[in-house]
């Protein structure tokens, strides 16, 4: 009755050889020693499979798109077969009421023992009416599924931070998963990015399923192993940054030479993600390698800070939207003008005073 991961994979037509290869690959991508491969294999042969329920709220499906393009086809096949993608409204076979029934079935059958993966987020305004799934607000489906899950994965910047649908003034009140009021108190793993890197996604799922525990998270709830360094820390253009060699225009010599994109607004120095090491599309490239700065897509609030092409971004706290130099420079100029005026008045005042001849 209880199927193991291994059983499921075999049923999906994956050979033992491929299975063992997958185990060593997983160990490698998680940064573990080769000795971990047999441990992973053993876990997968003996542990009952944990289903993953993948829900979609307000989103653009870029996380799913990224996920199914995972660089190692093997990893992708294996993981896809491990996930219970009976319910994933983008790629599932069932439709209509049958499909919705699957959610209930998984929740009932695996109470407390399934992983809830959320792509997108619920809008809370108008009782959640801006995102209806199967006739009900998505926020209700989310809360229902969260109630009996083991842990939640917040896929992408939408579920993790809000992303563009939560951009000011956020009319639908799109709200990241961890801020949904009344959501069951479950551990949440944030895997931000727009979209997150496929290999990072598969590795996070593999870790959860094989070790049956959460990867180490940082203070903001992201897996340490992929989000502990900035793009800038491992960027191959970094020597040009340190040298002071910057692209100043998109068509200048420095751009052709591949110099640092800092002055073009690159957000690599303030963005925690694995792009500069793992890269994209099977390690082919990443935005900076293609000549465009990082826009900081895995950072909280990246969508609300003004231009992607300015180094200094906006501070929105004062009701005005301006960068630090605009706010501070203006303040300093006003102070300077005030001082000049005050000095002038002081001189006038002195001149008027009778007998002010000291000094």
């Amino acid at each position, binding site marked *: 009755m209880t199927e193991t991961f291994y059983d499921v994979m075999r049923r999906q037509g994956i050979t033992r050889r491929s299975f063992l290869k997958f185990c060593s690959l997983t160990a490698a991508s998680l940064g573990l020693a080769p000795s971990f491969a047999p441990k992973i294999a053993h876990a997968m042969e003996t542990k009952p499979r944990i289903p993953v329920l993948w829900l979609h709220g307000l989103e653009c499906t870029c996380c799913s798109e990224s996920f199914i393009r995972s660089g190692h086809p093997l990893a992708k096949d294996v993981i896809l077969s491990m996930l219970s993608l009976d319910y994933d409204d983008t790629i599932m076979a069932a439709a209509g009421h049958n499909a919705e029934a699957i959610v209930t079935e998984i929740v009932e059958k695996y109470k407390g023992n399934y992983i809830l993966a959320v792509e997108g987020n619920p809008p809370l305004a108008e009782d959640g009416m801006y995102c209806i799934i199967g006739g009900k607000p998505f926020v209700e489906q989310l809360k229902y599924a969260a109630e009996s899950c083991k842990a939640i994965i917040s896929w992408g910047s939408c579920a993790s931070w809000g992303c563009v649908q939560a951009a000011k003034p956020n009319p639908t009140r799109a709200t990241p998963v961890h801020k949904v009021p009344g959501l069951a108190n479950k551990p949440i793993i944030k895997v931000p990015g727009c979209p997150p890197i496929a290999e990072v996604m598969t590795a996070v799922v593999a870790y959860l399923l094989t070790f049956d525990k959460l990867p180490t998270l940082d*203070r*903001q709830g992201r897996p340490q192993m992929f989000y502990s360094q900035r793009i800038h820390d491992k960027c191959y253009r970094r*020597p040009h940054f340190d*040298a002071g060699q910057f692209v100043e225009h998109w068509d200048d010599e420095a751009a052709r030479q591949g110099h640092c994109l800092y002055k073009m607004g690159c957000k690599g120095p*303030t963005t925690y993600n694995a792009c500069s090491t793992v890269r994209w599309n099977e390690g082919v490239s990443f935005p900076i390698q293609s000549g465009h700065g990082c826009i900081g897509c895995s950072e909280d609030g990246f969508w609300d*800070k003004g231009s992607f092409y300015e180094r200094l971004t906006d501070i929105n706290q004062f009701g005005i939207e301006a960068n*630090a130099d605009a706010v*501070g420079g203006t303040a*300093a100029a006003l102070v300077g003008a005030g001082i000049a005026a005050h000095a002038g008045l002081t001189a006038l*005042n002195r001149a008027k005073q009778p007998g002010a001849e000291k000094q």
Partner: protein
Amino acid sequence: MTELTSAASTAPIYVYEKPVRLWHSLNALLIVVLSVTGYLIADPLASLKGEASEHFLMGYIRFVHFSAGYLLSIALLFRLYWAYAGNEHARQIFLPPLLKTHYWQGVFHEVLWYLFLVKEPRKYIGHNPLAILAMHFVFVWGVLFMIVTGFALYGEGAGQGRWQHTFFSSWVLPLFGSSQSLHSWHHLFMWLIICFVLVHIYVALREDRLSRQSMLSTIVTGWRTFKDDRPVDDESGA
């Protein structure tokens, strides 16, 4: 209004001990260096040509910024120690007597003086009450803010496990939400400190001429001299 009295004379009084004076000049120098290099970090100089291996301009600018940042922090720690070890005037900018009415009357009088509404300022051995207010709330807290956010930024580059990250970045980053916001606030507070410095220097020059006690010579030699022999208005007298 009661005028607190003390020996009413024009005799000079030793106010700012050597460590305070040395700290003042070192601190002023470091703030200028930090502001210039900080500005250049956010808005770098014109790009250099040639091979990357031939230059390290941005690296040097950042190095100077970080070294000055360390010095500023150590100097402030030392100054805090001196607030404890030094004379009563060394404590003024750290412990403003915010609960004393006499102090607030002094602040009020000083404001009137700057609005040209009273003919004469009061007379002080230490800082005047308005100066204490600005030095405490704008300078002391402003510089503390720069140090905390500065080390949090530094910890990001140093990496997890380093003390800068453990003691600063780990809690400051979540507080500001993102590294980009942290940069913006570190940058904005530079302007606050620049505004303080502009006003501070103007006021120091102006008070040197118009107040009833010496200013510039005091921060250089430590001795306060007085221009009249009426009683002083300091909180605690002499």
